[in-house]
C-alpha cells in the first residue's frame, strides 16, 4: 500500500499562515494512509484538536470541519464531499499526494493543501512499522530474483549483485538497512536456486518508470472492442 507520514505540525501551521480563511476542512482517507496511521479518521480528529488549540492561541476564529472518505483517489467518493467543500475556504488533505491532487482536480476553485508526506509503497513489517518494498517501476522483475526486488531493496538498485559496501548483511548507506542483495542471496540459497543470480542482467529499460513521462493505465475491458 501507499505509506504516508503526517507533516510536522509547525510545517502545517506555516502552510496555513500563508492562506486567508476562517473555515477549514480537514479530509482524511480511509484506505492506505489509514493503515499507516497518518491520514485516517483518527488522525483527522487529532489534527483538528491540535489546530483548534493553535488557532485559539493566535486569537483566530476558525471553524474546522472534518470528513474522511473511503478513497481520495476516486471521484466517486469525492462527490460525497461537495457540500463540505462548498462551505469551506480551505481544504487540508491527509490523503497521499494522489489524493491531494485528485481533490484539487475535483474542486478546482478551492485551495487544497497537503497534510502529510507520501513516503513509499510498503508492507507492514512490524506493529506500527512499514517498510518499502516496491518503487512501481512498471515492469516487474520479481520472477528473476525470486521474490526480493533489487530495484527497491538495494540502495543503488543494482541488478547484477551486491556492491563492495555490503557487510554483515547490512547496507553501506545505513547499518539499519538490510543489504538487498544479502536478502536475495539468502532467499535463492534457501530455494536452492542460486543459478537465477549467476546470469547477466541487461541494463533496465526505464521507459515503464517515470522516465517515460507521467504514466497512465487504461483498463481495456472497460471499453469493449
Amino acid at each position, binding site marked *: 500500500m501507499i505509506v504516508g507520514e503526517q507533516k510536522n505540525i509547525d510545517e502545517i501551521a506555516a502552510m496555513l499562515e500563508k492562506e486567508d480563511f476562517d473555515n477549514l476542512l480537514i479530509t482524511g482517507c480511509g484506505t492506505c494512509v489509514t493503515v499507516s496511521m497518518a491520514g485516517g479518521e483518527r488522525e483527522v480528529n487529532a489534527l483538528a484538536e491540535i489546530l483548534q488549540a493553535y488557532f485559539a492561541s493566535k486569537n483566530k476564529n476558525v471553524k474546522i470541519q472534518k470528513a474522511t472518505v473511503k478513497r481520495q483517489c476516486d471521484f466517486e467518493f469525492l462527490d460525497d464531499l461537495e457540500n463540505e467543500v462548498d462551505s469551506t475556504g480551505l481544504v487540508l488533505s491527509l490523503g497521499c499526494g494522489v489524493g491531494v491532487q485528485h481533490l484539487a482536480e475535483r474542486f478546482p476553485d478551492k485551495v487544497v493543501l497537503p497534510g502529510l508526506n507520501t513516503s513509499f509503497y510498503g508492507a507492514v513489517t512490524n506493529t506500527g512499522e512499514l517498510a518499502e518494498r516496491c518503487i512501481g517501476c512498471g515492469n516487474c522483475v520479481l520472477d528473476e530474483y525470486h521474490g526480493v526486488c533489487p530495484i527497491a531493496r538495494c540502495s543503488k538498485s543494482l541488478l*547484477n549483485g551486491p556492491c563492495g559496501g555490503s557487510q554483515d548483511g547490512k547496507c553501506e548507506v545505513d547499518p539499519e538497512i538490510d543489504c538487498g542483495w544479502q536478502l536475495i*542471496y539468502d532467499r535463492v540459497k534457501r530455494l536452492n536456486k542460486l543459478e537465477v*543470480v549467476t546470469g547477466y542482467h541487461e541494463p533496465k529499460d526505464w521507459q515503464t518508470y517515470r522516465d517515460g513521462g507521467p504514466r497512465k493505465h487504461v483498463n481495456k475491458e472497460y471499453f469493449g472492442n
Partner: protein
Amino acid sequence: MPEIKSLLKKRLEAGQFVVCSELGPPIGADPEFIREKARRLKGYVDATNVTDNQTAIVRMSSIAAARIAADEGLEMIIQVTARDRNRIGIQSDILGASSLGLRNVLCLTGDHQVFGMDKGAKNVFDLDSVQLIKTVHDMVHEGVLLNGKEMEVPPQMFIGGAANPFADPFEMQMLKMIKKVEAGVEFFQTQAIYNIEKFEYWMEEVRKLGLHKKSYILAGILPTRSVKALKMMKKHVAGMDVPDEVIARMEAAGDKKKEGVKMAVETIERVKQIEGVRGVHLMPVAWEEITPVVVEEAGLYPRPEVE
C-alpha cells in the same frame, strides 16, 4: 598520428609486476595541483588512477585531471562510477577520454552519495558495474554503443574493475567477479588489504575459479600513518576490513610514519608471493607523497622499461 596503446596493458602482458597509484583531484580548478602531484609520482609508478568524485565529494573531473597528469608523462587510469551519470553520459565520457589519448579505465558502481557533502543529490545508478564493464567492452571490442549504434572510430580502453575480498555475501561477491570477467574486465584493483589472511583465502578461491588467468589482479595497498584513520576506515569506510591487531600495532608504534611505510611494504612483500597477484595498487589517502617512498622501500624502484 602514432597509435597510442595502454602501457599498463603492455607491462602486464610482458609479465611485469606492476605498480599503480592513485591521485585525488582537487576541490577546485587548479591544473598546477595535478601537475605537481604527477611530477612527484613520475618514474615510481606504472599507472595512476584518478578518482571520480570519490566518496561522493565534488572534485575536478577524473578525465580532465587524468589528461593534465598524462601531459606530465604519467600513464593514467580514469575512473568512472555509475552514481552520477546515466548510460548516455558514461558512454559519451568514454569516447571523450579515448579521444584525449587516455587508455585505461576503472569501472565502478560508486560510493553512495550519503558519504559525501551532497546527501540530497539524486543518484543515478542507471548501469551497475557489470553492465558498465560490458558497455565499455562492447564499445571498444565490438565497436557498438549500448543502443546498438555502430561507431566508425570506436574508443580504445584497457578495462578494469574493482573486487572486494572483504565484502559480503562472499559467494555472491565471487559470482559478481565472475560476471565482471565474462562482461570483459581485463584487470582488477582490489579493496585495500589490512586483513592479509582473508585476502590469501580470497585469492585461493579466485584461483579455484581460474579468474587469475582471465584477468590481472592488482592488490590494493593503503599506506597510513594514523591510528585515527585506521579506526575511521574500520568503522565508516564501506567494505573495509581492518583487524584490531593492525590498529594496536600502529598505536604501539613510536614513529607512526615509519611504521605506516613498514606495514605497507610488508603487505606488498606478502601479496607478491601469492600466485595470481600481478601487481599492487597504492592508494594512500591524504598522504600521496609517501607513494615513492613505499615503492623504493619495497624494492620496486626503478620501474622496468616497457616497449
